[in-house]
């Protein structure tokens, strides 16, 4: 036990799917446990903060952190893990790019609290109680972590060494990362551990894509029965394939759904949403004289920010909505 390397797993603003993804490596997890000691994994085993604090700096060979950073507690924990770990792996879309929770960057903290604790139809809160960092209840002082005004990807809070992409990362991507770590075959720091190619290049429907892809209409997946064996873009469905990194095994495509972009942008793209916007502008077959017609067709995409930045808003150039 003594000479096996120690690893840690932690979660921040996430759904728990990434924790599932660790278990999804199935029986291979036994090989992993054979090779490492798990020194911190609060979701699965009984660990406390002290189990990290009491360790010397650089004790863990690697920490796998999933989830975006939204609260002061999460910030504190990832800073602690950074100190105690030689390598930090951002695990999954939320920690890599900000993820779905990152869409909250379209709203301020006040707007979120107002909706969640006052206006949402399922909320009953007659006293209009809002979470407060400090409060008193029956003579006891209560403290809650600060809820920041925006969501951060992990590398906006601490330096990150490697990224394991995906919502959630598929088992082979997780296993490859673990094997590379254990065999000392990791690439240069800063790498996203998935091929730097667009999803379209590995898509099973790629051969059904015409030489020159042009579309005259946009559709939404619930509006019609898409042909699961034909390139979704040619059918007018907004598929993020052209702007998204591959490596996912085309799970969504094989299940009859267009790509939503969870693997994030390719290495040379600054901003996944804008890459897709640019790709879309190139294939929408409208002349300048047909401007009104184009505006009408774009009505089928009522939420461009939510669609183009479904997983990557906090790590985009603008990072979220500009507010006063």
């Amino acid at each position, binding site marked *: 036990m003594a000479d096996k390397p120690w690893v840690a797993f932690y979660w921040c603003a996430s759904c728990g799917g990434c924790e599932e993804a660790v278990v999804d490596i199935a029986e291979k997890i036994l090989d992993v446990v054979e090779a490492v000691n798990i020194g911190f994994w609060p979701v699965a085993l009984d660990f406390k903060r002290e189990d990290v604090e009491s360790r010397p700096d650089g004790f863990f060979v690697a920490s796998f952190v999933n989830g975006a*950073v939204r609260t*002061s507690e999460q*910030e504190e924990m990832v800073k602690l893990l950074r100190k105690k770990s030689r390598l930090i792996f951002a695990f999954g879309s939320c920690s890599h790019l900000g993820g779905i929770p990152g869409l909250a960057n*379209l709203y301020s903290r006040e707007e979120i609290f107002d909706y969640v604790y006052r206006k949402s139809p399922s909320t009953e809160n007659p006293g209009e109680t809002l979470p407060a960092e400090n409060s008193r209840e029956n003579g006891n002082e209560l403290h809650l972590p*600060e809820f*920041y*005004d*925006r969501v*951060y990807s992990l590398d*906006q*809070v601490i330096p990150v060494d490697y990224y394991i992409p995906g919502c959630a990362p598929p088992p082979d991507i997780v296993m490859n990362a673990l094997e590379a770590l254990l065999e000392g075959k990791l690439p240069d720091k800063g790498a996203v551990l998935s091929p730097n190619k667009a999803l379209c290049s590995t898509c099973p429907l790629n051969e059904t894509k015409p030489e020159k892809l042009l579309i005259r209409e946009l559709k939404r997946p619930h509006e019609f029965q898409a042909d699961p064996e034909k390139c979704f873009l040619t059918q007018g469905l907004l598929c993020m394939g052209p702007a998204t990194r591959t490596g996912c095994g085309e799970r969504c495509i094989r299940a009859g759904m267009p790509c939503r972009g969870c693997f994030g942008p390719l290495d040379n*793209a*600054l*901003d996944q*949403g*804008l*890459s897709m*916007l*640019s790709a*879309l*502008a*190139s294939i*929408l077959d*409208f*002349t*300048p*004289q047909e*401007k009104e017609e*184009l*505006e009408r067709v*774009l009505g089928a995409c009522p*939420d*461009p*920010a939510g669609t*183009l930045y479904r997983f990557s808003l906090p790590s985009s*150039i*603008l*990072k*979220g*909505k*500009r*507010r*006063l």
Partner: protein
Amino acid sequence: MHEPKIIAFFCNWCTYTAADLAGVSRMSYAPNVRIIRVMCSGRVDPELVIKAFDLGADGVLIGGCHPGDCHYQNGNHKTLRRYILLKRLLSQMGIEPERLRLEWISASEGEKVRRVCNEFTEQIRGLGPLRREVKNGG
């Protein structure tokens, strides 16, 4: 008074040549516009526009050839489609869509460069400075 910063991407074949013409004709116009020459308005990647806003531009102006006159046949058609998409995105991102403007200006329209730069500068002045990113925690 707030002096707006405006980044202008002008295409080499039409609008930039028109700006040159405005210059040699000794026309004067708002000094707020910083012109960047690109080979085609179709080369103006949305990333360039958003990056300009992010780095402190209060307005972004794109100038290209009139439809049908593009040196590369239809580069400006793509520009227009990107511009329409970008405007929709900008309003969701809390940036007034009016801060982005697209104009077709041919090589002979030096006067139009002067008018558009002046008009746009006044319009952006009216909108005031672009909201800066909120920094908090993290």
